[in-house]
């Protein structure tokens, strides 16, 4: 019952008016930052850091963390409404979220992403609270071979992200991997495929490429004809603007999947929310009873990645608070902040400053609740945005894309890259090449190659290293299962598939 006592102690800190106020300020600001593409939580936290130096460390950390997980709530908004991913961890949300909006279900999509974020975010905090130290010990068991197996598992999801043609899906993924490896090689300091451009030495930015592939290409497709049918039907009545009971039922598995996958991958300093969101999307599709409908606007396809990228926040705090190991840019800034406040982040932090740990944990329960209350009423409001006639809306989409991309690195080069990928995305759509495998390949390709080479250096060239370590072996077996499953399912379905017509969504 120590946990309950500690939690009560935490709430006694988190519910102090000053902490409540700053918690709200943080999550509110985070939501705003998340909604607008380009300006991300890392930059915002860095800018606000000096303002927090006169606050008490716990209060300041409560606010800064509010920005961090608040931004994850907001990130889905533009993905769903305009097909502009707000953060790189919301790219997976575009796949089904935008299609839902096109079917007139923008409201339920936004609503479910707030609900999934709340459930997974709360799960993340609960896991952090109950088991942070043992979980951190578990995360430490991940070395390069385990990362390799994990990335391999992620890659095997390609089998689920292809459209009609497996061949085209694989090609798309391979090109994605190639885009990912552009830049300086960590092992030899040699540059690969940089075309002599210094801007490419650090590689292509995933969010920049995604905004081109998704939002610019989408505009080109929509402009094919001057006489378009209404793009976004917006149903009247509040009832149709929020998820209904059936939607929630459909998302039961997605809530669990997103919570677990996001938290687990969030704990690993070498992975992150983007990888988590794609893997949970893949898992959702793999276990779905109607995988063929993914990509056409199914609600689980929004709930899973959105949940994953929120429970990632709880996961990322495990190594940060228990061991002083940050897993992301935001984590690194918070670590520096703890130093500046005179605290010493490391293995002794929780022991020496229990008020900080428990106060923060309790504030995250409160913050997640605030975010749900803040975001759900915003849903009908945001959905109204689609009532704007498309001829006025799409120049704005182009504008937001440009500003969003430019503000990532303040680089014109990135804006050009976005434009070029707009054209590529258009032709991919026209030639029926799926975009999702390319995104997956780009996210996982570099970590996969790195982990492979790191592992082989560790084992001095012997590939047995992947099979005589239990976690790595388990993950590899799981990937085999994942790859084999569509074949098995196809076999099983084949005889009955002739007699049973495709199930409709309404059943």
């Amino acid at each position, binding site marked *: 019952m120590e946990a309950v006592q500690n939690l009560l102690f935490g709430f006694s800190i988190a519910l102090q008016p000053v902490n409540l106020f700053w918690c709200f300020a943080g999550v509110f600001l985070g939501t705003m930052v998340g909604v607008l593409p380009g300006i991300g939580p890392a930059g915002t936290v860095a800018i606000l850091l000096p303002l927090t130096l006169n606050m008490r460390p716990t209060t300041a950390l409560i606010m800064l963390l509010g920005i961090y997980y608040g931004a994850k709530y907001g990130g889905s908004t533009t993905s769903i409404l305009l097909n502009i991913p707000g953060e790189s961890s919301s790219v997976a949300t575009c796949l089904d979220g935008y299609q839902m909006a096109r079917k007139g279900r923008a409201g339920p999509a936004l609503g479910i992403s707030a609900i999934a974020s709340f459930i997974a975010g709360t799960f993340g905090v609960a896991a952090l609270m109950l088991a942070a130290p043992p979980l951190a010990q578990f995360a430490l068991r991940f070395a390069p071979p385990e990362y390799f197996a994990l990335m391999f598992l992620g890659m095997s999801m390609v089998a689920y992200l292809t459209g009609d043609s497996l061949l085209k899906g694989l090609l798309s993924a391979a090109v994605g991997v190639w885009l990912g490896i552009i830049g300086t090689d960590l092992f030899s300091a040699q540059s690969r495929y940089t075309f002599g451009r210094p801007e490419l030495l650090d590689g292509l930015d995933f969010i920049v490429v995604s905004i081109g592939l998704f939002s610019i290409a989408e505009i080109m497709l929509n402009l094919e004809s001057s006489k378009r049918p209404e793009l976004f039907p917006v149903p009247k009545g509040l009832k149709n603007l929020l998820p209904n009971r059936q939607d929630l039922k459909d998302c039961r598995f997605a809530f669990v999947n997103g919570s677990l996958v996001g938290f687990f991958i969030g704990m690993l300093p070498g992975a992150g929310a983007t990888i988590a969101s794609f893997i949970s999307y893949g898992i959702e599709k793999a276990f779905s009873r109607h995988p063929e409908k993914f990509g056409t606007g199914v609600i689980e396809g929004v709930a899973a990645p959105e949940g994953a990228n929120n429970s990632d926040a709880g996961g990322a705090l495990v190594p940060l608070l228990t061991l002083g190991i940050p897993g992301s840019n935001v984590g690194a800034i918070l670590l520096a902040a703890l130093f500046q406040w005179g605290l010493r982040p490391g293995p002794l932090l929780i022991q020496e400053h229990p008020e900080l740990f428990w106060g923060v944990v309790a504030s995250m329960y409160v913050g997640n609740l605030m975010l749900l209350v803040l975001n759900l009423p915003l849903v009908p409001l945001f959905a109204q945005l689609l009532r704007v006639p498309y001829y006025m809306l799409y120049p704005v989409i182009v504008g937001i894309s440009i500003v969003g991309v430019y503000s990532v690195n303040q680089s014109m080069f990135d804006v050009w890259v976005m434009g070029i990928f707009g054209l590529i995305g*258009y032709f991919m759509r026209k030639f029926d090449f799926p975009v999702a495998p390319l995104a997956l390949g780009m996210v996982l390709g570099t970590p996969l190659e790195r982990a492979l080479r790191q592992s082989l250096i560790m084992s001095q060239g012997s590939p047995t290293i992947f099979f005589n370590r239990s976690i790595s072996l388990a993950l590899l077996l799981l990937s085999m299962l994942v790859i084999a499953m569509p074949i098995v399912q196809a076999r099983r379905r084949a005889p009955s598939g002739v007699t049973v017509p495709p199930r409709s969504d309404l059943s």
Partner: protein
Amino acid sequence: MPKRFHTLFDGDLAGAACLLALGGFILFKALDLAYTSDVGPGPGFLPFWLGAVIAGLSLLLIFTAARKRPRAVQSRVKIRSLVSWLAIMIGIGLLPALGFYVSFAILTAFFVFAMENRPVAVALAVAAASGLGFYLIFSLALGVPMPAGPWGF
């Protein structure tokens, strides 16, 4: 003649041809990078296989596409889309010289007037209104840096 036009836009074939070229390029460039290092795979290991896989798969795609050619899906690439893309690219090209707001206003006015056939007045109104909206949200409220022209915005 029309038949040729169609094959040109057979999505599988056109895509595969582009990818074959890309695969060849990746493979060719990978030869400059060391395939192995003294400690396992080198910087050229993955690029080599990527290039080979992309080239191989696109060849396979060309064969399968050629086989089902009579009923191949025709993808029509629309001139309107390409024009809108060009407009966006020109808009981007104007950014360093004219700054975000002016280039964005020109681009918006072009879209509304030329692409959507709305009256000039509507085009200008939309351009001005959305420019103001951007200013209020991004510049004023959030202080997001924008490409600036010689006049400072």
